[in-house]
């Protein structure tokens, strides 16, 4: 009896009950979406063909998955080996992030069996979307290969694992190149809509803004994800991981802080070069200032204070704050400041089913991360390969 209760207690944990409920609702919405079309679950229309699935799942998903290329570049390209313990969690987060971006794209685009078409069948080489699609396809393959040693060590496939490990530097360089291309292209997508995007967010430098912001988004996401792992998966971390984590948080916090201040600088230049100062005194201007000062400059300053004081809690607060800022920026560009001139009746607001589908997709990511991190050598080094790097 007590054994049965223990088993039930193990299955019906608060995490399992909440994630199970979300996934159940998500599956129902999936059936509705793919049988009834976009109209059955979304508020999208001809004025607003891109909604929260693009604004949040795709734009935020790609930006926040940038931790993979940032961490592996720091460790393998710049030789900062003291960040080695952060590479595997970052690669896993990036791999899941990109895989879920592609998964989420199916909900928006529909007809999943045509996923290979843009790359293999009908290439629209003059479209930025083709470039984004090709890069995401290639980078997802790179991330899968970078992630594979984790699974191969778990499966005890030593020979294949050793072959993949030898390709680490090439994969890292390829990953950085591809990320540079598609992170910026996602911003460049909006440069074709100068009349639709509010002038404060529209800039011919959008591609640069997206790329630079992806760097501190990635750095902050690594710190944020690490603090969650410390809270919930502490027992899975080995001594090296625990010893290095403070250095990772402080080092990444320092880098994020400086890049964020540089980003504020280029945003100022963006306003000046288009002479958009007069917009700053409007309601839109206050919202823009809230984004740039409240969610970039302030967390950058908090990061700097935290790094000076070596205050880990403050670094983690700044990381969560920055992640929120990047989400706000992507939502502002794709939803809030997009079609800003339309009367409010024609503006887009997501239906609860769109939001629930996004929550469902994020939940799948968290569940898979937990599954992998509790079984495979992500937060600890496999005993057979402890001195392998």
């Amino acid at each position, binding site marked *: 009896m007590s054994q049965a209760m223990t088993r039930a207690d193990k299955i019906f944990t608060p995490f399992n009950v909440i994630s199970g409920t979300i996934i159940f609702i998500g599956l129902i919405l999936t059936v509705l979406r793919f049988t009834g079309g976009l109209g059955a679950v979304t508020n999208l229309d001809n004025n607003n063909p891109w909604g929260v699935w693009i604004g949040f799942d795709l734009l935020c998903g790609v930006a926040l998955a940038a931790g993979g290329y940032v961490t592996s570049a720091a460790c393998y390209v710049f030789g900062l080996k003291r960040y080695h313990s952060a590479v595997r969690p970052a690669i896993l987060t990036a791999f899941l992030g990109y895989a879920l971006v592609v998964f989420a794209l199916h909900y928006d685009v529909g007809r999943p069996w045509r996923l290979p078409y843009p790359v293999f069948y009908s290439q629209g080489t003059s479209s930025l979307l083709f470039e984004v699609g090709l890069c995401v396809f290639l980078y997802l393959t790179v991330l899968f290969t970078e992630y594979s040693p984790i699974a191969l060590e778990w499966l005890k496939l030593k020979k294949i694992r050793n072959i993949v490990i030898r390709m680490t530097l090439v994969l890292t360089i390829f990953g950085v190149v591809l990320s540079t291309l598609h992170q910026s292209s996602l911003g460049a997508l909006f440069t074709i809509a100068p009349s639709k995007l509010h002038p404060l967010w529209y800039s011919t430098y959008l591609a640069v803004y997206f790329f630079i912001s992806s760097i501190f988004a990635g750095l902050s996401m690594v710190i944020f994800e690490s603090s969650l792992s410390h809270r919930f998966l502490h027992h899975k971390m080995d001594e090296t991981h625990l010893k290095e984590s403070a250095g990772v948080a402080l080092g990444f916090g*320092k880098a994020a*802080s*400086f890049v964020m*201040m*540089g980003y504020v*600088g280029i945003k*100022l*230049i963006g306003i*000046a*070069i*288009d*002479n958009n100062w*007069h917009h700053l005194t409007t309601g839109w201007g206050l919202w823009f200032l809230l984004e740039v000062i409240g969610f970039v400059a302030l967390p950058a300053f908090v990061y*700097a204070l935290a*790094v*000076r004081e*070596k205050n880990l809690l403050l670094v983690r607060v700044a990381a969560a704050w920055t992640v929120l800022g990047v989400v706000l920026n992507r939502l502002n560009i794709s939803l809030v400041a997009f079609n800003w001139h339309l009367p409010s009746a024609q503006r887009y607001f997501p239906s609860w089913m769109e939001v629930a589908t996004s929550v469902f997709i994020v939940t799948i990511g968290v569940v898979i991360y937990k599954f992998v991190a509790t079984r495979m050598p992500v937060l600890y080094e496999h005993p057979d390969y402890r001195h392998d790097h």
Partner: protein
Amino acid sequence: MDTVFYTLHDFILYTKAVVYLLMGGILITLPLFWHFLTGRDEKKRTF
């Protein structure tokens, strides 16, 4: 009051001038911020 521009040349001259001033400000501010950021780091001798 907004500045009135009669030609594209006027516009570019004005905005470029502001950008150059901003760039000067950023060139001074960012190294100061870096100094603030790393002020309490242990000094690493490279010689």
